[in-house]
C-alpha cells in the first residue's frame, strides 16, 4: 500500500504535468522560453516519481518551515525544491526573483484551485531585498540560491541554511557537437549554473560547426526580459581585447581564447568561450582554481572523460545540461538524505575564498 508521501508526490507530478500542458506561453510575457521550458518541466515532474522509489514515509529532520530564496533566470530550482517539502513534511516559503515570479505564482495558484492539499505546503511572494532578509528569522531553515553577492547576507544570517551557488558548466566536444548544444548555452541568458560558459574542442571542424549552429539559433532562442544590450556590447568590447571574436551577433557571441590559463575578466551574457584542447588535463589547467565552481559537463561522449568525472556534479550529453538527473540537488555531494544538514561556512567555495 502506498504511503502518504508517495501519494502526495504522485499528485505533485500529476499537477506539474497538467500545469505544463495548460501553460499558455503566449500570454505570459515573462514566461517566454517556449517548448524548452515545457520539456524541462516534464523532465522534472518525471523525477518526482523516481524519488518515491525508496520512500514509504516522510523523512525526518528537526525543522518545520523552510525559506527558499530563489535565483532569477533559473526556473527549474523552484520546481526541484517542491518535492522536498512533501518528503520532509516541511512548509516552504519561496522568495521569488523579479523574473519568473509570474510562473511560480501561477503554479501555486494552480495548486490552490486543483490540488488544495498540496498547496498547504507552499507559499511565495516577490519581495524587496530588505523585506526578504527580514523574513528569514521567521523560518527554521533557509535555502539560498544565487551568486557570491549573497555572501554578506549569509554572514548575517543566524538561521541554519544551505547555500547553493554559484557555479558554471562547460562543454567538451571530443568528436563533434550536435545542434542541441546551443540550448545549453543560450537559454536563460547563461545565468544558471547549468549554463555552458566554455566549450573545449579538439579539432577545427567542430569549431566551424559551433559557429554555424550558433548563427542558426541566435535569433530563435530569445533573450530574457532582463538582458542588457549595453552590458553585452560593453563586455564584448572588453573581452574581445583578450580573445578572438569568432561570431558577433546582436545579442550572441562566440569568443576564442588562446590562453593556457583563463584570464579572469567579466564575461558577456550569451557568449560562449571556445578553447582548443588536446587532452583533459588542458581543461584542468585552464580552469585553475575555478574548477571548484564547476557544476556540470555536457559532451558528445560522457564515457570518455576520466579526470573530470570527479570534478563535476554530473556529466551528460549536449542539449541535456539543464535537465538535472534524479537525486541531484543543486550541488555536488548534496542528496535527498543530507540536504537539510547545515554545513559550517557553506559559502567558502563561492568564489574560492
Amino acid at each position, binding site marked *: 500500500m502506498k504511503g502518504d508521501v508517495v501519494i502526495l508526490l504522485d499528485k505533485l507530478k500529476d499537477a506539474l504535468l497538467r500545469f505544463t500542458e495548460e501553460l499558455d506561453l503566449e500570454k505570459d510575457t515573462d514566461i517566454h522560453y517556449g517548448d524548452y521550458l515545457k520539456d524541462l518541466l516534464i523532465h522534472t515532474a518525471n523525477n518526482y516519481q523516481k524519488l518515491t522509489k525508496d520512500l514509504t514515509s516522510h523523512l525526518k529532520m528537526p525543522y518545520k518551515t523552510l525559506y527558499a530564496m530563489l535565483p532569477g533566470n533559473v526556473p527549474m530550482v523552484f520546481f526541484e525544491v517542491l518535492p522536498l517539502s512533501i518528503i520532509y513534511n516541511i512548509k516552504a516559503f519561496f522568495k521569488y526573483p523579479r523574473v519568473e515570479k509570474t510562473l511560480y505564482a501561477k503554479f501555486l495558484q494552480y495548486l490552490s484551485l486543483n490540488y488544495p492539499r498540496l498547496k498547504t505546503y507552499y507559499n511565495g511572494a516577490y519581495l524587496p531585498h530588505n523585506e526578504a532578509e527580514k523574513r528569514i528569522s521567521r523560518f527554521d531553515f533557509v535555502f539560498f540560491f544565487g551568486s557570491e553577492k549573497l555572501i554578506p547576507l549569509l554572514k548575517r544570517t543566524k538561521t541554519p541554511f544551505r547555500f547553493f551557488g554559484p557555479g558554471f558548466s562547460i562543454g567538451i566536444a571530443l568528436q563533434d557537437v550536435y545542434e542541441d548544444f546551443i540550448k545549453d548555452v543560450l537559454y536563460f541568458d547563461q545565468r544558471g549554473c547549468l549554463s555552458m*560558459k566554455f566549450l573545449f574542442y579538439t579539432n577545427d571542424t567542430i569549431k566551424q560547426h559551433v559557429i554555424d549552429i550558433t548563427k542558426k539559433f541566435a535569433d530563435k532562442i530569445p533573450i530574457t526580459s532582463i538582458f542588457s544590450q549595453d*552590458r553585452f556590447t560593453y563586455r564584448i568590447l572588453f573581452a574581445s581585447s583578450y580573445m578572438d571574436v569568432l561570431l558577433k551577433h546582436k545579442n550572441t557571441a562566440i569568443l576564442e581564447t588562446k590562453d593556457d590559463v583563463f584570464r579572469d575578466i567579466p564575461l558577456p551574457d550569451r557568449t560562449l568561450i571556445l578553447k582548443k584542447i588536446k587532452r583533459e588535463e588542458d581543461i584542468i589547467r585552464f580552469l585553475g582554481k575555478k574548477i571548484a565552481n564547476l557544476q556540470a559537463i555536457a559532451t558528445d561522449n560522457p564515457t570518455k572523460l576520466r579526470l573530470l568525472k570527479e570534478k563535476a556534479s554530473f556529466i551528460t550529453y549536449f542539449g541535456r545540461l539543464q535537465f538535472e538527473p534524479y537525486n541531484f540537488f543543486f550541488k555536488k555531494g548534496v542528496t535527498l538524505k543530507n540536504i537539510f544538514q547545515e554545513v559550517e561556512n557553506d559559502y567558502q567555495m563561492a568564489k574560492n575564498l
Partner: protein
Amino acid sequence: MELLNEVKDHIKNGTEFDEGLALKIVEYQAESIRPYGEFLKKQTGKTHFKSISEVPPFPVDFFKIAELFALKEHKGYFESSGTQGTKSRVYYNDTSLSLYRVSSIVSYPLKQRPIKTPLDMSKVKTSSLAFMVNHFIETFGGKTITNIYEEVQEGDVLFLTAIQLYNFLQTAKKTFLKRIYIVETGGYKRFKRAYNRFKLYALAKNVFKNADFYTEYGMTELFSQFYADQGHPFREKHYLKVMEHSYGYLKVFDFANLFHISYIVVPDIIDWKKDGFEYIKRDVEDERGCSYTFG
C-alpha cells in the same frame, strides 16, 4: 608640447566639439599608450581615423587592470572608490595635472565663492575628488569643516557627497537659513539603488531653506566634470562631449584626458533629455541567477 597647449586652448576658448582635434588626440593616445593602440587595432584594424564615429569607445574597466598613461613617468595615481569591487587607477604627473586644473576650473559653475567641505582632504594625492576640491579651495578660498551650521557662511559653496548630505539631513535638528550653494558630488553608488537627486534635494530643502542645489558628476577616469544646476539636466561641454544622445551607457569624449584615454564608455546608465542628460544608475547585475561571476 604643442598638443597640450592646443587642448588647453580648446578647453578655455572653444565653443563646440572639435572633431579634428579629437582625432589628433586619439592618434596620439594610440601611439603613446600601448594597450589603447592594441585595443583600437583589435577592434578596427587601425589607429588612424577619418571620423570620430569610427572610433570605438574604450571600456572604463581597463583602468582596473592596465597602466594607461601617455607620458614617460608618472608621480602618482588617483584611485576610484571601488564600490563595485576592484579599483581603477589613473596615473598622473605635473603635466597631466595642469590639464586637470584648467578643465576642472572651466567646468565649475560657482567660481569666486568660498568653498566649505566636510570631504576628507587627506586623500588629495589619491582621490581625484579631493584633489579637485582642494584646487578649488586654493583658487577661490575656503576650507574643510566639521560643523555645517557654524562654519558655512552666507554666499558659501557647501561641497559634499550625496551620502554626506543624506546623513546630515537624517540628523539635522534645525533649519539652515543662510543663502548658500550646495554642490552635491555623487557617491550614490553606495545607495545601492536608483538615485534620484530631485528627491534628495526636496528632502534637503526642508533643512536648507535658502540653498541652491548643484550636482557634480565626475569620476576618477574623467579629468573634466559634468554639472547640473537647479532642476536642469547635466550639461555636456565642447571639451566634454556625450557621444550618444540616447538612453544607455555613457559614452564620453573628454579632451582633458589627453594623457590617459579620452573616448571612454562607462557602465553608468544615462537618459538623454533635450539639452543634457539625467544620471539613472550604475549598471549592476541585480539578478545574476546562480551562475559564477567571472572577473
